[in-house]
């Protein structure tokens, strides 16, 4: 949907990424995913995100690198960034990080936080020409047409 806030999940762990996508696609949000910082950066070049859920434990310091690059490329973007970290990892200290969640994730808290944070940033008034349909929208279309069935 054009008027839904758009959210990007950046997570290299397949199970967690799919789980996060599953939780957020149940919310009134348009959801995309990326497995690496590079892929995430590419997505931010074509779509405006209200919120980015960033795995702070990406390998080789990719999360910090992503934040630096995002800040450089989109210094004025109102995007709210939530870092998701395991208890043992170093805190991801960066001015662009608005909130930190610990793993394992409290699913209800996550859904509520993302919904509220995304609502603060209004979706773009004009459709973004280069921005493709969100993964959640594609998945919903497939579900409706019966061409996709999980399990």
């Amino acid at each position, binding site marked *: 949907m054009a008027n839904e806030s758009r959210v990007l999940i950046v997570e290299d762990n*397949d*199970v*967690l990424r*799919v*789980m996060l*996508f*599953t*939780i957020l696609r*149940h919310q009134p949000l348009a959801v995309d995913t990326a497995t690496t910082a590079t892929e995430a950066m590419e997505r931010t070049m074509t779509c405006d995100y209200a919120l980015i859920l960033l795995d702070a434990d990406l390998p080789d310091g990719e999360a910090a690198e992503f934040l630096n690059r995002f800040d450089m490329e989109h210094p004025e973007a109102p995007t709210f960034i939530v870092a998701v970290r*395991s*208890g043992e990892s170093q805190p991801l200290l960066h001015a662009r990080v608005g909130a930190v969640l610990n*793993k*394992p*994730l*409290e*699913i*209800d808290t996550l859904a509520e936080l993302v919904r509220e944070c995304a609502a603060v940033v209004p979706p773009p008034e004009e459709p973004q020409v280069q921005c493709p349909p969100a993964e959640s929208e594609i998945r919903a279309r497939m579900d409706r047409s019966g061409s996709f069935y*999980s*399990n």
Partner: protein
Amino acid sequence: MGREKRILVIDDDEAIRMLLFTVLRRRGFAVDRARNGAEAIEAMQRCCYTVALVDLMMPVKNGWDVLEWMATQPKNERPLAIVLTAGTATRPMSPDVVAGTIRKPFDVELLLDIVAACADGHEVGQQRNGCPPPQSNEVRERPRGGDVN
């Protein structure tokens, strides 16, 4: 055909255990039930599970005991845990063992989708020798449109 995705429901509340057992079975999963932590550990020693739904507050052995035991098992032989909580969990949990926590009362559709997501992504080893058929196989659907004699 892929390997069987077997789910273990661990809850002392019979209503919740039956609800989860039924909805998961109807989604096509192979499902077993455990009434407490001790039964759950026994089940996991007998069979390999892909996902375990773990209640925390239970008699005999509680959910924390189950999670602690799971943490000692090899990663490819233990299920991913989804923890069902009645309130705020007071002790930290290992993200290696627990994929996420969800508060009761939970949204059944959301929970089913999360189980499916975890089951799709998490692979466990071959089923153990001597593991009996899942309890969900024992349930037969009643034919529609009338009583069964």
